[in-house]
């Protein structure tokens, strides 16, 4: 199939950006979206032009590196799929596709489609962990955890940290990201001990990194490639309340 791409080009954080138009031909339905961009880049290189910068690594939907806004939708039209797992069979010959980077205040653009998401690491660093050092923890078999709790923890823990939730949110909020980590750890007995401090530290850091607040637009859940549920934001709110009462 033959496509027209309108791609955001921006040479560095301070430089002005614009949409640039490119034609790509001979795209096959079995190609992934990023393989289609590879084809474009190979052509640009041969023409002596600067290839489009975009981020990717695993190309399996798990590392969270990739992330493009495709026709206005973070990660594009695929259902529960990251950009690298989106295949060209979702498009047809003659389509025009607009490709832009995440547009979030807290994710400055570095070049073209690549942004700086280190704010997400700062949130985890603030308290997205259980305070245990390497050494001699108790035998894993001595602590029983009900299957529902373990499953709920895993549902939340599946977050790949791509930032699509923030990119989809009209307020640029990373609340789903925070909620996923808070819920993962708070669902487990070993994570309950610091639950109050954790939710406080993580939400506070989210705001100080410049992310907006959640005002229930629900766009984040739809954009999440892992289908992280909104119910975790409700859980985060309950955890925040509990933390408040603990003083």
């Amino acid at each position, binding site marked *: 199939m033959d496509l027209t791409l309108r791609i955001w080009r921006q040479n*560095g954080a301070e430089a002005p950006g614009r949409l640039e138009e490119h034609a790509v031909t001979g795209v*096959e339905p*079995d*190609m992934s979206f990023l*393989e289609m961009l*590879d*084809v474009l880049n*190979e052509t640009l*290189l*041969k023409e*002596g*032009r*600067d*290839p489009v*910068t975009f*981020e990717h*690594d*695993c*190309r*399996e*939907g*798990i*590392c*969270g590196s990739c992330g493009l806004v495709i026709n206005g939708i973070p990660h594009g039209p*695929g259902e529960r*799929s990251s950009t690298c*797992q989106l*295949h060209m069979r979702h498009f047809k010959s003659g389509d025009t596709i607009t490709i832009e980077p995440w547009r979030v205040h807290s994710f400055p653009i570095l*070049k073209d489609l690549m942004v700086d*998401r*280190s704010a*997400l*690491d700062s949130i*985890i*660093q603030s308290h*997205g*962990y*259980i*305070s*245990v*050092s*390497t050494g*001699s*923890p*108790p035998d*894993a*078999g001595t602590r*029983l*955890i*009900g299957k529902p709790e*373990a499953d709920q*923890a*895993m549902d939340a*823990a*599946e977050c*790949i*940290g791509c930032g699509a939730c923030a990119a989809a949110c009209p307020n640029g909020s990373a609340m789903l990201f925070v909620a996923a980590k808070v819920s*993962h*750890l708070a669902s487990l007995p070993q*994570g309950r001990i610091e639950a109050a401090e954790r939710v406080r530290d993580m939400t506070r850091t989210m705001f100080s990194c410049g992310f907006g607040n959640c005002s229930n637009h629900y766009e984040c859940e739809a954009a999440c490639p892992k289908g992280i549920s909104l119910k975790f934001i409700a859980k985060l709110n309950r955890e925040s309340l509990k933390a408040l009462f603990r003083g």
Partner: protein
Amino acid sequence: MQLDGKCPGGPIAEQWDRHKFAMKLVNPANKRKFTILVVGSGLAGASAAASLGELGYNVEVFCYQDSTRRAHSIAAQGGINAPKNYPNDGDSIHRLFYDTVKGGDFRSREPNVYRLAQVSNSIIDQCVAQGVPFARDYGGYLVNRSFGGAQVSRTFYARGQTGQQLLLGAYQALARQRKAGTVHLHTRSEMLDLVLVDGEAKGIIARDLISGELHSYAGDAVVLASGGYVNVFYLSTNAMGCNVTAAYRAYKRGACFANPCYTQIHPTCIPVSGEHQSKLTLMSESLRNDGRIWVPKQKGDTRRPEDIPEQDRDYYLERKYPSFGNLAPRDIASRAAKEACDQGRGVGPTGYGVYLDFSDAIQRLGETAIQERYGNLFEMYERITAENAYRQPMRIYPAPHYSMGGLWVDYNLQSNVPGLFVLGEANFSDHGANRLGASALMQGLADGYFVIPYTIADYLGRIAPGAVDTGHEAFQACRESVEKRISGLLGGKGRQTVNEFHRRLGNIMWEDCGMARSRESLNRALEQIPQLRREFWEDVILTGAPGGLNQELEKALRVADFLEFGELLARDALAREESCGGHFRTEYQTEEGEAMRNDKDFSHVAAWEYSGEDTAPAMHTEPLAFENVQLAVRSYK
């Protein structure tokens, strides 16, 4: 050069404890005076850095991704081994040790493997304490699944995302240390050379991938945990950025590279669909718990799989290896698939595929149970192939997946260059000629959480902290050589892209140095690779300046090293005149087509020492002794 593994000796079960006692310690108050550079933030690097930070060392971590959480370990699916024996099926440390030595086709070092088996139980304890949500049953107990090459269930898992959950555990531990100020991160920072001062590893040169600037970093020791090298095959299951650069540059500075020819071709990956393919996707080996592998009995049978009756199907693994069946080890399962396809019995549009069929399991257990076990894998398969594996069998084919070879290390995980330690997939130590499933995660975390925190002290305890800084002339010289390499690549008027060269190298490696190798094919590869390398330096297209963000340059630097390393791999494969594990030489096979080892002449580690640009590298050997597991022909029949 005499390679001394420095194994402690004595009864194998007591060696590690005795060794821990014999090693030097660093006084707690002195630890913060030592700086340790850790290259890599995968399971090995992140667990090492977090643990060393907790002990009080000053740790600097480097990775090429934007966040330490994105290291390639994140992609591991199936699980991690530990002989907890929760299922009561007869598992023990000794059995895991035995399985790993046998699975590695008797080409690993016994004491290292025993220690790995010993500490593996603590890994599960550590990870559960961190909040890793391993699968549990309705009673709240941890559950296990089976993996290839073992007859017990000892694999712990978190759905199909075990690597992700383990890495997030280590990443969170690392984040906690970063907050505590013991660990400093240098993300988007790629190591391009190792700096030696008086023959000891004292620093690295790294390129800031955003600004393009080269920076020097000095430390009292360098820990490489930079992962594996199978991207030398171009198409593999590894992440796009996985590379051999850090390890290869250390090799060029004097560290020996051990057994580079031991590469693992994983039997269950989604087949190649076309020229545009940029990587191959693994379908976890755990699927072989319930899926049955088959091809049509007749060559050229083009019927749809559901139209092929039972008597016309060849469940070749079950037929050839009745006691392990579909759970035969990876090297054996991969070769059997290749053999079936070479006979013209392969399936799918290219003929390079075999079926992995779940219909029996679905009938027996119900679709819900299968979904519970493998739901995300089936989803991934459908996303890529647009086929529903609940309705029709998956199509799979072997693909390069893991490197057993790596930098040579002794029992302390120290290379022959003092002060240079190597962990995880980047070293060669534990898996011999073939790795069993679910044991790479185990090894990465064992090295990082439970081995390096002890063994590095034995080195640091003998030196004075902070003796070298980046003002030393060795840094200047090293930096200049990196600058030269970069400017040599840029600015030419090339006509071929980096990807094109990488694909061509991959073709040579796969055809001549892949699942089956012969003297003839290896000699061909040894002729072609240097030619391709010369062409690369003359004709590669690279735009831009040395400074600034330049993803093509990043790729070019990695491919340049693969173009040298591929030759070393082929050379090692040629020198090893036997078949063992993942290394199959067509000249050395039984009448039934099984691998034929030659213990008399090749029961050794081959460690290669760089000897200059125009000189062939020198091969050193470390003999392997088998005192606790009897050398035997590996049989899975």
